[in-house]
Every structure is written in C-alpha cells, then in structure tokens.
C-alpha cells in the first residue's frame, strides 16, 4: 500500500450541517485504530452534491476525491472507508 492517505471530505455546508454533518464533524474520534492512520479527515465548505438530486440526500462525504457517500452517518462512512481501503490494498 502506498503512503498516501485516503482523503475523507466531510461536507459542512449549510444543508449537510443541518441534516447531520454536525455529528460527522467528530468522525475522526470514532475511527477504529486499524484505519485511523490511513485516512485524512477534513471539512469541505460545500461538495455541491445537494444540488444534484441523483446523488441522494445530505449529508454527504467524499472519499478519495471521487466517491460520494450520501445519507452519511459515522457508521456507513467507516464501512465505506474500510471497503475503499481494501480495494486500494488489493
């Protein structure tokens, strides 16, 4: 696996914030030790997904600058990070 960390962008735009991103801000505290060092969690002013009906509902999180997770919760984001990291390792 490369040294580059997986970028996890939590949208904290207004819509995402009121629909659940307020809780996602603390995502990093809930990351299991096995993946903690492999990701870089940052906030994003707006990922722009709330304007696109096809991408599901807010809050949104983006992995690796490409994969959008809609209806994001701490649990499903951690799960998606795991899957993504396994794919990257493979």
């Amino acid at each position: 696996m490369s040294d580059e960390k997986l970028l996890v962008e939590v949208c904290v735009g207004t819509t995402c914030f009121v629909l659940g991103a307020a809780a996602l801000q603390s995502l990093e505290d809930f990351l299991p030790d096995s993946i903690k060092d492999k990701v870089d969690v940052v906030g994003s002013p707006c990922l722009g997904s709330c304007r696109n009906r096809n991408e599901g509902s807010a809050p949104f999180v983006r992995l690796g600058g490409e994969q959008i997770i809609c209806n994001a919760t701490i649990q499903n984001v951690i799960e998606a990070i795991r899957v993504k990291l396994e794919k990257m390792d493979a």
Partner: protein
Amino acid sequence: MPNDDIFVEIECFQQTKTGESACGDDFKSVRIEAEDRSLSVLSDGLGSGIKATILATMTTTMALEFFRRNMDIVQSSETIMDCLPVCEVRRISYATFTVADISASNRVRMIEMDNPRFIHLRNGKDIEWPERSFASANWPDRHLHVSEFRAAVGDRIIFCSDGVTQAGLGGKSTKFGWRREGLLEFVQGKIAKNPEMSARELAQMVVYHARMKNPDSRCVDDTSCAVIYFRRPRKLRLLTGPPFRQEHDREFAEQVINFNGHTIVSGGTTANIVSRELHKKISCDLKKFTPGAPPIFHMDGIDLVTEGILTLTGEARALEFGLPDSAPPAIKCMYNMFMDSDVIEMIVGTKVNEAHQDPSLPVDLEIRRNIVKHLAKILEEKYRKRVIVKYF
C-alpha cells in the same frame, strides 16, 4: 452626502453604582443619515438607582428629540428641567446633560449643563474653545455652556459623568477626586502610547481606571465616559451567497482582493467560488470543531471564511442579545471583526440555494437577503456602524 474620509466613532461605557440595579446615568446616540449628523446625549440623574435612571432617561430622550428638531437651546433645556419629577427627599428635580451635536463637515456643537467640562484632544493637547453661557430666567442657578468648533481627523472628544472626575474623593492622593486634570493626564498618556486607540477601548479604560481610585475599587457613583473619535474609517467587506448570474462569479470574487480593509467570506458555495476564481486553496481542520456549530475554514488572504446561513443567523442573535461565552469561534471571530470596523460592506449574491428549499430540512433556513437586512439594521441602529449592502 456622508463624508467617506472621516468616520465618527461614538462609544460610551458605563458602570452602575455598586449595589444598585439600574444605572443612574443614561447615554443615547442617534445618527440622522439624511443630514449626515450624529447626536449624542449623556445625562446624570440626581441620586442613584431607579429614581436617577428615570431622571436621566427622561433627559436624554427629550434632549435628543428637541435638539434633532433644532429647537431653541435655552427653551429646550427649560422644558426638560420643568418636566422632570421632583425628588421627594431633596425637593428638587435635577439631571445634568452634555449634548454632542456633530453635523456635516465635522462641525461640532457641545451643549453642557453641569456635567464635567468636555475634553477636546488634538495632537495630545486639550483645546479650550471659547464658550457662550446662557442662564434661564426660570432656573437662574442652572447655566448652559455652548461651544462650537470644527473637528479634524484624529481628534477626540471625551465627556463623562462626575462619577469619573470625583473618583477617589477623599483619598490620600486624590483629596478632591481624580478631577478633570487627572482624567486629562490619563487619556493623554494612553493615547500617546496607542495613538489609534478606539473610542470603545478608551471609554472602557477611563471608567475602569476611575473605579480603581475608589476604596475597594467599588463604584461609589454611577460612572460613565463617552468618547467621540474622528478617525479614518476601518473597513470590512463581507461576501455572502453566489451571484445570480454565474458569469459574474469572477467579478464577485475579486471584491476580496485589492481591498483596503478586512474581509469575510460567509457561505460554503461562496467560498468555493472565491477559491475557484482566485485559485486559492480552502482548508478546514476538523480537529478544532465546536459541537453543534459549523467550523471556520481557511483561505490565504481572507481574514475569515465561514459557513453561511447558520453562522449569519447566529451572528445576528449575538449582536442583538449579546455574545455568549459559549459562542462558536466563527461567530466570536465575526463579532469582533464587526466591532472593530466602522464601515461594513456586505456584498450579497442573490442566487437562491435550491437545496435549502427542501421541505424535509429540520430547521428554518432563512432567506439570505432577509438575514443580511436584519444584520445591517442591528449594526446601524445598535452599533452605529455605517453599513452598505450591494447585491450581485
């Protein structure tokens, strides 16, 4: 036409006599935009507590109204004195006042009755202007003093209630109180050290220092100090909301560069537009977030970058009802930037955020233009800021 080169910062700081629930000094200030004029009044009511508050508030309210209508000075003052209720204990009706009437081109007229004489500081010196005195036929022992002059950039006018000049009365080094001389020396010293000191800071310093002269640092009398500072305006520009037409994004984003003052970008999409058009990277460290509040972002060359609607709504609440200690950093930071500015420009993009129209959203997301209007109104009326709103 408002004079753009000089901003008149008017601030008053007060402390209530220890043990009283209401301040017996009252200060009021209004800006009359159409005449490019500001009118401020400080009154010290006889006694202390509620009785004094009523006397002082009646005086400031009447004085503002009479002087803004340019009524005759002596007649207005007589009316005020005639109207005040008579104190049952002392059998007199009494409240002092100082009126500072500042009109276009910084022409100043000071009208004083029984407050300590005002100080006019220019280049560190107290200028004593000639004054005309008037006595009222009905109130022969009350004298009105009127001075007229023109203020220049950098000038300060300082006036106070006798709680300041009589501070420390009976003390070892201040047998007759701090007096006007002591106050003058103090403000001269402070300004020599920090020539740009704001009116807000100076007024606070005077009151705190006066208080320290008293035994146990108690307020033995209601203590107020008003400072008027003729300064070059400190400017702030706030950008919020995406422009109605996308082809204006560039021009919109450029409003934050080559600007002689502080800048705020408030809004996620807005931040993205500025970032894209000016090739500035946005970063956000989630390690320092406050629970329940949107974080602060960082962009090179911009003093503050925040989320939009929630932060602006919280800001309006803080400005209206006071800044709580627990306020999130974005709101605190914006609050301080507003306080430290004289002229605030709000550049508002008017494109509606469709995502906010979703009926499933759990909170009221106000329309941006309404919040901005509300913010502007509070900043103008409560904080006497000059606010300019431009739509994009």
